[in-house]
């Protein structure tokens, strides 16, 4: 029996966004706005090689030719790209080599978020890369992982220390021309994480990146690049929070994963960006491109996401199943409350033979929110015996919110079996009263019911995150009933 249930229930009653504080950290900004000089400035701040600057400039010039797409089921206010700081970093000496050099205020910030950066204080079995605004401030357990040949470092360090790897893989899964926000990210990205698991190595601990936006009017544009060589395995976690502010802030990230033969990558996200207030003021725009390439035969990727934060979420973690017998999985819980909007789902592109994919999407809508599942299952002509099963469930709390499902199925091989199931349900007053009658308060009842509904996905998360995620689900739905 899960021991932690009591604690979860106890914490449910606290409510509100718990991570909304701002830290008093001296911040270096570059001038506001976006133009070629800004792109060059970011690149020079990071002492980047020429090829990377060229990559950025190509991306920037391409971005200028694009219009923001209008196909999602989202209402997005105009974004003034000249009113954003594209680079903000905590003031510090160049690259702290030991923890003593890290600004104590920064350590405090991450402590407060429950992400201690002192290795001895950390949960054993988890290494963390902490990214604040535009830069990585600290990566833990780097040395012990290096003994196994595992590279886990900030993206900037990877550019410096492993330029050939970065150059080989960056943009190979999500090209700069992929979409509007991919182009923008490719032009102005500042930091992120780099993971390389060499042939035959099972990473012995969870790797995790914690993203924090602190500075005002700043966009966060990070990139994550994960490479798993043959027979490698890694489980990777991503968490994120931001202060409460009345302005919307843009977060446009790229995650690329390359998985070789028989290798497996698990990528879990607990997305808890500031969602805006009850009237829909403020909050993060979370526009992210995440894609994994199952390159080798028998390779496997699974995306698990718990999306509770952000004013607007717009993302479709995808799997390109190129290797024969490769497997793609997508497990998602997306919660929207108040005036939040989410348009999220997955793309499964079957290219290799005997590939299979599984989609489980659980949408939970409350308040005046809009929650859409959008998914594509594509089977190419040569993909013999492809299998897909998609399950898309929507749970509605109240009658002012919306749940929508947009499944696209595109099959070019007649041996494919593609199944799609969808359900919509409500938490009924009778269910809540039944719980009440057993001594369970309405808030706790909603927490129980919602966690029960999302269980199939939460079970996919690593233990520490699963507990966190259960609490989050309940908290983000507080005040949505009764």
């Amino acid at each position, binding site marked *: 029996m899960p021991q932690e249930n*009591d604690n979860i229930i106890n914490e449910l009653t606290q409510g509100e966004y718990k991570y909304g504080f701002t830290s008093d950290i001296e911040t270096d900004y570059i001038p506001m706005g976006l133009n070629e000089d800004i792109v060059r400035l970011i690149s020079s701040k990071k002492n980047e090689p020429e090829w990377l600057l060229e990559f950025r400039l190509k991306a920037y010039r391409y971005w200028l030719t694009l219009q923001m797409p209008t196909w999602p089921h989202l209402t997005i206010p105009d974004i003034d790209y000249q009113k954003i700081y594209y680079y903000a970093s905590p003031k510090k000496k160049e690259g702290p080599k030991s923890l003593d050099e890290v600004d104590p205020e920064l350590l405090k910030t991450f402590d407060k978020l429950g992400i201690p950066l002192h290795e001895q204080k950390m949960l054993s079995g988890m290494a963390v890369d902490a990214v604040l605004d535009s830069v990585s401030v600290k990566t833990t357990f780097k040395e012990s992982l290096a003994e196994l040949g595992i590279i886990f470092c900030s993206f900037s360090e990877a550019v410096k220390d492993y330029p050939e790897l970065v150059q080989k893989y960056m943009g190979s899964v999500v090209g700069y021309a992929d979409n509007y926000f991919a182009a923008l990210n490719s032009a102005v990205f500042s930091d992120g994480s780099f993971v390389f698991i060499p042939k035959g190595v099972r990473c012995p601990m969870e790797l995790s990146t914690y993203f924090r936006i602190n500075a005002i009017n700043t966009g966060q544009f990070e990139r994550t690049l994960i490479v798993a060589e043959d027979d490698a395995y890694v489980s990777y976690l991503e968490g994120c929070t931001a202060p409460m502010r009345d302005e919307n802030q843009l977060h446009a990230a790229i995650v690329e994963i390359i998985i070789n033969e028989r290798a497996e990558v698990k990528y879990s996200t607990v997305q808890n960006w500031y969602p805006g207030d009850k009237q829909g003021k403020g909050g993060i725009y979370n526009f992210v491109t995440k894609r994994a390439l199952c390159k080798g035969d028998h390779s496997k990727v699974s995306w698990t996401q718990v999306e509770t934060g952000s004013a607007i979420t717009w993302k479709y973690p995808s799997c390109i199943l190129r290797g024969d017998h490769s497997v793609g999985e997508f497990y998602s819980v997306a919660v929207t409350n108040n005036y939040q909007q989410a348009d999220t789902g997955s793309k499964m592109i079957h290219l290799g033979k005997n590939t299979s994919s599984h989609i489980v999407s659980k949408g939970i809508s409350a308040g005046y929110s809009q929650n859409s599942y959008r998914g594509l299952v594509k089977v190419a002509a040569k993909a013999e015996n492809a299998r897909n099963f998609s399950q898309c469930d929507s749970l509605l709390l109240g009658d002012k919110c919306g749940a929508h499902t947009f499944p696209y199925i595109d099959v070019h091989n007649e041996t494919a079996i593609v199944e799609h199931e969808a359900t919509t349900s409500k938490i009924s*007053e009778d269910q809540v009263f*039944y719980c009440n009658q057993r001594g*369970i308060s309405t808030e706790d009842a909603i927490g*129980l019911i919602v966690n029960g509904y999302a*269980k199939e996905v939460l079970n996919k998360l690593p233990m520490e995150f699963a507990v966190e995620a259960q609490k989050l689900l309940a908290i983000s739905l507080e005040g949505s009933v009764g």
Partner: protein
Amino acid sequence: MLTIKNLHANVNGKEILKGIDLVVKPGEVHAIMGPNGSGKSTLASVLTGNPAFEITEGDISFYGKNLLDLLPEDRAREGVFLSFQYPVEIPGVSMVNFMRTAINEQRKYKGLEPMSASDFLKMMREKKEYVELDNKLANRSVNEGFSGGEKKRNEIFQMAMLEPRLSILDETDSGLDIDALRIVATGVNKLKSSENSTIVITHYQRLLDYIVPDFVHVLYKGRIVKSAGKELAYELEEKGYDWIKKELGE
């Protein structure tokens, strides 16, 4: 312990309870009978605080507390238990998790520490015996896919777990075959004590062979129109509700 005075209640603006008076003392079993639609379930809902019902007049006191001032969950924690006529299904929420939450909420209310996992499991094992509840049911989601009879047994199992001071059994006999009826009734009888009281709502006399009432009340059109000892149940069985209607001059 329970005193209901001149209770009036509406649902959707329509008056269903039209002045109920009832006193239930510790250890007593009261049966409430009456034809369909007379307001029996409504009375149960009002006692337990179902927000769908509006109290327009009257008082309910329970061990000196004004029940109408308490939230439904606090009434439950005070020891008011309802075995629902139609128990709802709660998909994804395991019985274990559900009961553990319920028990610990009740303990918190009483200022007690949460129960340890092992004590809790032991208690579950013991209490399942009362109603011969299948072990498998405890691992399933609350009432999900349970047969009608299993749902009713599950209600009594929860009653055994929560050890209420006042149990209201709303048509717990309906949908049960004779064996299941005996099991449920035996469970209820085992839980009876000189401290706690039971209100048995039924419109058949059958259940009352097993759970013997001290008083029988006939609820008709929102009023208690007749109260007597257990012999009233047999009289009703024999003469039908038309007899009551005639007596009332209808």
